[in-house]
């Protein structure tokens, strides 16, 4: 039977505040254990939470970024469960009235087509601490530095249909939140963690199948692998006439498989109730409007603009609008050289290629946007060929100066002097009499192929610097 995959994602996004959501402790990553855990974070008796305005602002920014309804009166609730890295015995979260309601989100897929993904809601909550299960004489170690870090949990509708779509959504979400500047989006440091709800149904069926939830997957690659694995597992069960159990599973990256969590690890009866230590959060219209005014151009808008304004393909526009620094760099190159298509090509192929090989961010590129624009100007005015330009770029990357300086210092300027070119063409004709005879004996169609040999010889003689168009013209004149 043909199965359709149905996926919904819950992303826990760490917000880029300086201090925690309910206390004045710092949120710096990688500090010594428990040096950033205050009395509030440790749940000392009598401590009270006070909500961080920046966390509220970031949540509203996200809501506006996906065109969602903002909860003007939102409520915090207690989610009750026992675990040592949660000292209060409950997590402060939002259940009934989240800060961000329904929204929609456009995602571009690999093939350039787009899909709208529904966002059910997004709510503010606090992170838990970290449990370390290495051997501390048969005990576990608890680090509460992360306890109280603000999270925005973003929940999608079951709108995703494949691992590839799920990854495309996560990449687009990553792009959006880093554009907004509400999260550093650093996956390796756990700034974006993902729970995956996944079920199968016969193709064409309306009803959803029973779903399994895979907890806490923290990289795009693992999301893709975990989904592929889980789809296969569920399909096998259904093909054999079995039923999928509704359960929570863990993805094990080392074994590339999902396994059920131990029943002890599952405590789904959270007994939510309104948090009595926090009052309702009321968000005024003018607060929302001021934030709306301050939003930057978002990735989807930028992508569409790149396609319209610069005539880029959907794919190129998507790559170049992925991050704000990359988009800004690209636009600066276009401004410098005036040709968006060549600029798009150079940024994507040569520049991103070098950056990836050297594991550098665009912000740390040794070749500035102005410098790259200057190089492209020299291709456009025929001072150098595209091939020589790569050589110049290499030298610029090594810090040997601007395009003009490198071209000058290495004597790479394209030879367009007809006298010099004529001498070279004459020399090639004189040294290759056999090929000349062959050429003269050939018909028109074959000549077109054979002339390439002579062009190649002239280019070789000029160390690649001859103006190819002029060489062609000269050869046509001389080979008669």
């Amino acid at each position: 039977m043909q199965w359709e995959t149905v996926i919904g994602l819950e992303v826990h996004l760490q917000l880029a505040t300086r201090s925690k959501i309910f206390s004045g402790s710092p949120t710096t990553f990688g500090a010594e254990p428990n040096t950033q855990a205050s009395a509030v974070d440790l749940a000392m008796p009598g401590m009270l939470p006070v909500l961080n305005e920046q966390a509220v602002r970031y949540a509203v920014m996200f809501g506006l970024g996906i065109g969602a309804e903002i909860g003007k009166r939102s409520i915090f609730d207690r989610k009750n469960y026992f675990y040592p890295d949660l000292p209060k015995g409950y997590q402060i979260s939002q259940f009934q009235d989240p800060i961000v309601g329904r929204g929609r989100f456009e995602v571009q897929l690999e093939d350039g087509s787009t899909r709208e993904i529904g966002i059910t809601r997004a709510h503010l909550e606090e992170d838990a601490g970290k449990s370390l299960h290495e051997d501390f004489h048969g005990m576990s170690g608890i680090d509460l530095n992360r306890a109280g870090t603000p999270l925005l949990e973003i929940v999608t509708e079951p709108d995703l249909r494949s691992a590839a779509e799920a990854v495309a959504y996560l990449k687009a979400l990553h792009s959006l939140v880093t554009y907004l500047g509400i999260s550093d989006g650093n996956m390796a440091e756990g700034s974006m963690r993902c729970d995956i709800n996944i079920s199968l149904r016969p193709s064409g069926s309306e009803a959803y199948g029973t779903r399994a939830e895979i907890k806490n997957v923290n990289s795009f690659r693992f999301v893709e692998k975990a989904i592929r694995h889980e789809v296969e597992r569920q399909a096998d069960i259904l093909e054999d006439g079995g039923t999928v159990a509704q359960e929570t599973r863990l993805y094990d990256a080392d074994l590339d498989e999902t396994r059920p969590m131990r029943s002890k690890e599952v405590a789904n009866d959270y007994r939510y109730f309104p948090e009595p230590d926090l009052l309702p959060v009321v968000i005024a219209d003018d607060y929302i409007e001021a934030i709306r005014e301050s939003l930057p151009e978002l990735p989807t808008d930028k992508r569409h603009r790149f396609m319209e304004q610069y005539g880029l393909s959907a794919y190129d526009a998507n790559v170049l609008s992925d991050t704000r620094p990359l988009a800004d760099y690209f636009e600066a190159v276009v401004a410098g050289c005036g040709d968006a298509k060549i600029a798009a090509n150079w940024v994507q192929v040569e520049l991103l290629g070098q950056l990836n090989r050297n594991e550098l961010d665009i912000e740390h590129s040794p070749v500035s946007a102005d410098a790259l624009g200057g190089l492209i100007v020299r291709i456009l005015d025929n001072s150098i060929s595209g091939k020589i330009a790569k050589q110049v770029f290499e030298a610029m990357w090594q810090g040997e100066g601007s395009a003009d300086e490198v071209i000058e210092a290495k004597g790479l300027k394209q030879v367009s002097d007809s006298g010099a070119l004529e001498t070279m063409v004459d020399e090639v004709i004189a040294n290759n009499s056999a090929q000349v005879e062959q050429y003269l004996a050939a018909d028109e169609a074959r000549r077109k192929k054979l002339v390439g040999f002579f062009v190649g010889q002239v280019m070789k003689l000029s160390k690649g610097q001859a103006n190819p168009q002029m060489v062609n013209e000269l050869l046509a004149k001389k080979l008669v």
Partner: protein
Amino acid sequence: MAIEQDEIEKIAELARIRIDADHIGDVTRRITDILHMVDQLQAADTRDVEPMANPLDATQPLRADEVTESNRREAFQAIAPAVENGLYLVPKVIE
């Protein structure tokens, strides 16, 4: 609304409260009494009443995003039963 003894046992487990076997019948009966009172309250017509999340007629003040706490690990850990390398030690949570 009545509550069954096995539900009381489940709630006790979720709340990590131990109830002795010879007490559980009594606890079940007393909680059932409380639920009868809730039944009475629920009989009131609340169609035009907005749900109340907090009894105070006030809204949440917000604080500026500033670091105001310094590291007081030593003081906090001085009263912890077991610490090592800056970590709080607790009975092993996974086997």
